[in-house]
């Protein structure tokens, strides 16, 4: 489904699954090459294009999006790298761990075991420089975002938002539930590749004790 998003953007939403996301990666590459003046941004199960409506029409962007989605069917994506992220779970490092456990009807230790036991795939980047949305969270751990986002979440916070998990690369406002903390550096603008993670990479969380 393609919807307009203001007068200068369109969104294609296809639903979140690893298979759909692989197609979206392929569609993103096609669009990046075919319509380079448009800013194409991946989401979880969706893809948005931002354009200058005085230069190109929404109708043209809509056809480009449709064509790329059709062309993405069956395109093989390259395998990504495997990244281990050490995490200290709970206590001051994960102030919402108990809340997530209560929502899930599990003990805190069970939440940690399930979170660290998962195999995650980077679905897309976004929100902040170096922030990677990870697919593969145990559905039992899904937990709604906070009603009001925190004004400041520390860099390195490991968090759950809805059915997703991620690491905050920088101190920032945020509405996700914080369950742990890592000292991995996820974004450095002066590194040749600023972000540690890219779409298609796989991630494992390695527990480093609990406070």
């Amino acid at each position, binding site marked *: 489904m393609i919807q307009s*998003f203001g007068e200068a*953007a369109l969104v294609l939403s296809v639903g979140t699954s690893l298979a759909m996301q692989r197609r979206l990666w392929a569609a993103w590459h096609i669009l990046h090459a075919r319509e380079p003046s448009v800013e*194409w*941004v991946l989401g979880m199960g969706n893809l948005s294009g931002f354009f200058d409506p*005085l230069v190109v029409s929404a109708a043209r962007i809509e056809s480009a999006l449709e064509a790329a989605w059709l062309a993405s069917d069956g395109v093989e994506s390259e395998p990504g790298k495997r990244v281990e992220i050490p995490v200290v779970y709970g206590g001051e490092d994960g102030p919402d761990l108990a809340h997530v456990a209560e929502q899930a009807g599990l003990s805190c230790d069970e939440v940690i075991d399930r979170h660290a036991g998962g195999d995650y795939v980077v679905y897309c980047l*976004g*929100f902040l420089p170096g922030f990677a949305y990870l697919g593969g969270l145990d559905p039992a751990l899904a937990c709604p975002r906070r009603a009001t986002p925190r004004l400041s979440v520390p860099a390195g916070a490991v968090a759950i938002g809805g059915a997703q998990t991620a690491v905050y690369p920088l*101190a920032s406002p945020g509405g996700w539930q914080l369950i742990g903390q890592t000292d991995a550096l996820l974004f450095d603008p002066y590194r040749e590749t600023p972000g540690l993670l890219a779409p298609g990479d796989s991630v494992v969380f390695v527990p480093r004790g609990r406070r």
Partner: protein
Amino acid sequence: MTLTILKPGPLTTVQDLGRDGYAAFGVPRGGGCDALSLRLANLVAGNDEGAAALEVTLGGLKLRFDDATTFVYTGAAMNVTLDGVLLSPAHRYAAGAGAVLRFAYAERGARAYLALAGGIAVAPVLGSRSTGLLAGMGGFFGRALRSGDTLDCLPAEPRAPGVAVAQLERGEHLRVLPGPDWPLLDHAAQRQLLATPWQVSPASNRMGMRLAGSVVEIGAAPSLDSHAVMPGCVQLPESGQPIVLLADAQTTGGYLRALVVIRADLWRAGQFKPGDTLRFAEVDTAAALAALDAQQHWLVRIRRALSWWGTT
């Protein structure tokens, strides 16, 4: 040309028109929150419209020109003085070496722009000289300016002072289009969003402007898959109080995309300060495009008038 910051005020940063093309990597666009005033300041100063300028938030900036230069300020009404003499906005002035420029507290509007001949000379990072405060990148060492900082400008042709143009009026309304998640709100919630006089909360910054004044009943809103957002997107979190995303907006989010501020009014969104009241006014896409087109023409006319006038 070099200048020295004597007092930075609450927040003064180096900004240009932002980073194009890095949103897919999670890098916010950034740039001036009121890009129109920034462009105008640069045009009158005789710069490229995308040159780096200073964004002065809420006033309080005091600086010294260490060499003679020409400069222009635009945007919020702040009582700006050069060695004690009151200046007008969007007007090209000459300053001698040692002259002191002072911005008092903002009376109307939130952000003023100071363009100096040549533009601020800081190294571009990912294609822009804008300060990304969260990532600590770009601008002046990735941070807000402090007392004692000295900034250089790129070389510029000499320009005669005395050129001025009129600024646009801000008003209380932000024109909006319905966002992709508008249909998920019931009629009462839709009406409430559009009818409420929203107050800008002090918990606002360059990422987003938080609004208070009413609580929109969202009902059983679905938890959305994360999706791209941009400056101008009006998010509606479960708290029922909207957030208007500004220049440093995160590149993706998960809250309802209730409304979108039309592009022609983005500059207005950057000019509300805490305590100000704003209202959303719904328009259609044709009106949004016409307003954007009119704004581009306004800039073209100013560019033409300035070249007529003889800018040197």
